[in-house]
């Protein structure tokens, strides 16, 4: 009865693979432990159903295999059994859906003290924008995009004057502080994906999307793009560094000074020329 054997091997083998294989999620580095927990609940419920169905099939194939003189039973319906199974399934579904919706509500409710940063996807690189001292990100316009203003900052918006723009550099985040990530694209769809954060969101041209997280572990993590964005899609990489507040402040301070030096450079020179005249 190799069919019976194979069904049992598939059921047991799948469970063993699940527990023994070296391929599993990477340790989490954000507050979204809830998501991992919901996945674990789902694994347990679905795993039990999978094994139960397969073993029941294996038993049926063995017990009710064709033999000379053996006849099948004739039983069109069994209302009680069918109703019972429907109710149990409904309960199992509810046991997965309830925590799922609960965590989703948490996921889309950004805490009021979250500080905003902006991540911009462009074929095929990541750019970042942090608010300066004023804590506000300035407005942007697609028509303002030029070679020396790749993110299209609106030069007339005072909120944007001190924004820190990072291109081709790592993003730094302080540990333990909720961050609201605003996502923007200037060309096609992208998706900001750091596997350690669990959270991810597509990036749309023409509108702004968001998600939030609180980094919970220091380290350097790879940023991947998770929405097909053309042939450079797999090479659209970046890094995010989660660090202690002190280190983060020092880094941010350095970035702000660099920005001011870049912005003020030409204007101060102009001012000096005026003063001389």
């Amino acid at each position, binding site marked *: 009865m190799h069919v019976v054997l194979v*069904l049992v091997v598939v059921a047991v083998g799948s469970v063993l*693979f699940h527990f023994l294989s070296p*391929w*599993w*999620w990477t340790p989490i580095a954000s507050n979204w432990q809830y*998501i991992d927990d*919901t*996945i674990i609940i*789902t694994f347990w419920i*679905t795993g039990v159903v*999978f094994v139960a169905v*397969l073993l*029941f*099939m294996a038993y*049926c*194939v063995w017990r009710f295999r*064709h033999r000379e003189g053996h006849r*099948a*039973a*004739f*039983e*069109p*319906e*069994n209302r009680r059994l*069918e109703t019972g*199974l*429907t109710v149990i*399934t*409904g309960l199992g*579904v509810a046991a997965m*859906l309830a925590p799922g*919706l609960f965590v*989703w509500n948490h*996921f*889309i409710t950004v805490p009021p003290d979250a500080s905003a940063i902006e991540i911009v996807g462009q*074929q095929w690189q990541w750019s970042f924008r942090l608010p300066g001292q004023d804590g506000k990100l300035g407005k942007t316009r*697609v*028509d303002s995009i030029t070679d020396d203003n790749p993110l299209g900052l609106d030069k007339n918006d005072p909120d944007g004057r001190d924004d820190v723009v990072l291109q081709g550099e790592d993003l730094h985040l302080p540990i333990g502080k909720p961050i609201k990530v605003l*996502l923007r694209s*200037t*060309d*096609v*769809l992208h998706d900001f*994906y750091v*596997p350690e954060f669990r959270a*991810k*969101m*597509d990036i*749309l*041209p023409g*509108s702004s999307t968001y998600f939030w997280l609180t980094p919970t572990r220091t380290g350097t993590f*790879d940023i*991947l793009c*998770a*929405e*097909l964005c*053309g*042939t*450079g899609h*797999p090479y659209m990489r970046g890094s995010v560094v989660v660090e202690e507040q002190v280190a983060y402040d020092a880094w941010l301070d350095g970035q702000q000074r660099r920005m001011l030096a870049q912005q003020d450079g030409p204007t101060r020179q102009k001012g000096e020329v005026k003063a001389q005249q």
Partner: protein
Amino acid sequence: MVDVPLGVAGVPLAEVEDVELYHPKSWLTHYVFSQDAKIIAVQYSVTALSIGLVALMLSWLMRLQLAFPGALSFIDADAYYQLITMHGMMMVVYVLTALFLGGFGNYLIPLMLGARDMVFPYANMLSFWFYLLAVVVLFASFAVPGGPTGAGWTLYPPQSITAGTPGLAWGIVMMLVSLMIFIIGFTMGGLNYVVTVLQGRTRGMTLMRMPLTVWGIFTASVMALLAFPALFVGAVMMLFDRLLGTSFFMPEIIEQGARLPYGGGSPILFQHLFWFFGHPEVYIVALPAFGIVSDLISVHARRNIFGYRMMVWAIVAIGALSFVVWAHHMYVSGMNPYFGFFFATTTLIIAIPTAIKVYNWVLTLWRGDIHLTTPMLFALAFIVTFVNGGLTGLFLGNVVVDVPLSDTMFVVAHFHMVMGVAPILVIFGAIYHWYPKVTGRLLSVPLGQFHFWVTFLGAYLIFFPMHYLGLMGVPRRYYEMGETAIYPPSAHDLNIFITVMALLVGAAQLAFVFNLIWSLRHGRPAGGNPWRACSLEWQTSATPPPHGNFGKELPVVYRWAYDYNVPGAPEDFIPQNQPPLAGEIASRAP
């Protein structure tokens, strides 16, 4: 009124007029421009299976690239994205939809319902020729400058019509035009299937006596008629954006440093249109498979399908619910996040009728008389893969669980298991089951067994471990997995293993193709009803069934299609057209 037979429940049944058939006058109208649903079914099936072989070879190439990045010099990133796009679109639309509805629908609906043919044979013929034209346009896109589109089978704008994506010049236009032709062709076929089921049934064939195969194909056809128009308008709008400069899906964007003259459109609108088609599409493929596998299990377990009425209502409920779950493909698309509550709830509710179907399949095995024929093996394997793929759907449907898994290899593994492997196993089972009716000969059993074991176990070994790559964080649609600190070196070994299995499974299909051709001549003669089945297609006057399907008189139906091992009956099956036996209790079954 005297000779109008009474239904088993004692209700008089409506008279069905015999139809006038178109009789072919030449070889050309007999075999090429045929209006006979059985010939059209074979035309559809052979075309779809051939495209399936091409799509299989495309998947070989993409798997080779994933296992050995850069080893094949002709697969650059452009080519890779063209391969995955064409593989996906071919399989979903041109193989699975066409094969289940155009192939099995055409063959089985008239025969199972006791009809002489489809109600609109001419439109039925046109349906196939439009399909073939759509296929020609699709394949022609391999030959146009720039090659076929590499936008992914979901064709998301703006990427599908801006620089950085291969096939920008012609490929995307050819793809959209081909889809539009396909939909026009399908509409002619689909209306046929629906009207034939509603109007063409023989006397006594009430809706609740139809085999579940017909229920599945019927519901899927209704759904396809409602869902494909969303894709059609999406394709028209994108074509306008691409060719006429409209901005349905195009916001203000920069293309490689240059501002494009678009503005004000919404890329997410396309995603809504696409998935309003795309999610029902999953069930357009799945419901015929559900129906067919129910019949395979019942016939080969020699037992009535358990809970027939629940099975019918589950099919109808799944069909209806599948129109209000589409945005579960878009949880992280950037749509209003509050939609997530609604779509997660509807999505998980659909698990209940689906689970009922699984229970009733395995409960049909319970206390059966299980013959492990080749079709039965495929049916059992379908349950395994479908349960596996259906359960991983509970991960992806449960909004917040989808967040880390979306756009990873977990999704690829899930949908291949549930709408790739599972329905294809049913297709194989169905071909082993009905080939004797189509050709009069049985397929070779040893070749079938070999084909079954390699395909089932190989496919499971391809897609089960693939989930864990996604769980680990490997995104889908990557030209190469690349190096990231979180991928252990063993992940590359797993990629190679999956590719080796894919090559093996693909190669095993040669045994199937050989079996199909060889058995035409050399297969064991099947007789009219080799599986001793109840449904009408096995009760034809001759095998293969002649033009007009049945003899002079259409069969009259007295019972459902599942009278196996009825207590007191002389044989272990009672055909649907067998009048009530002496002493048979009238109201015991639908």
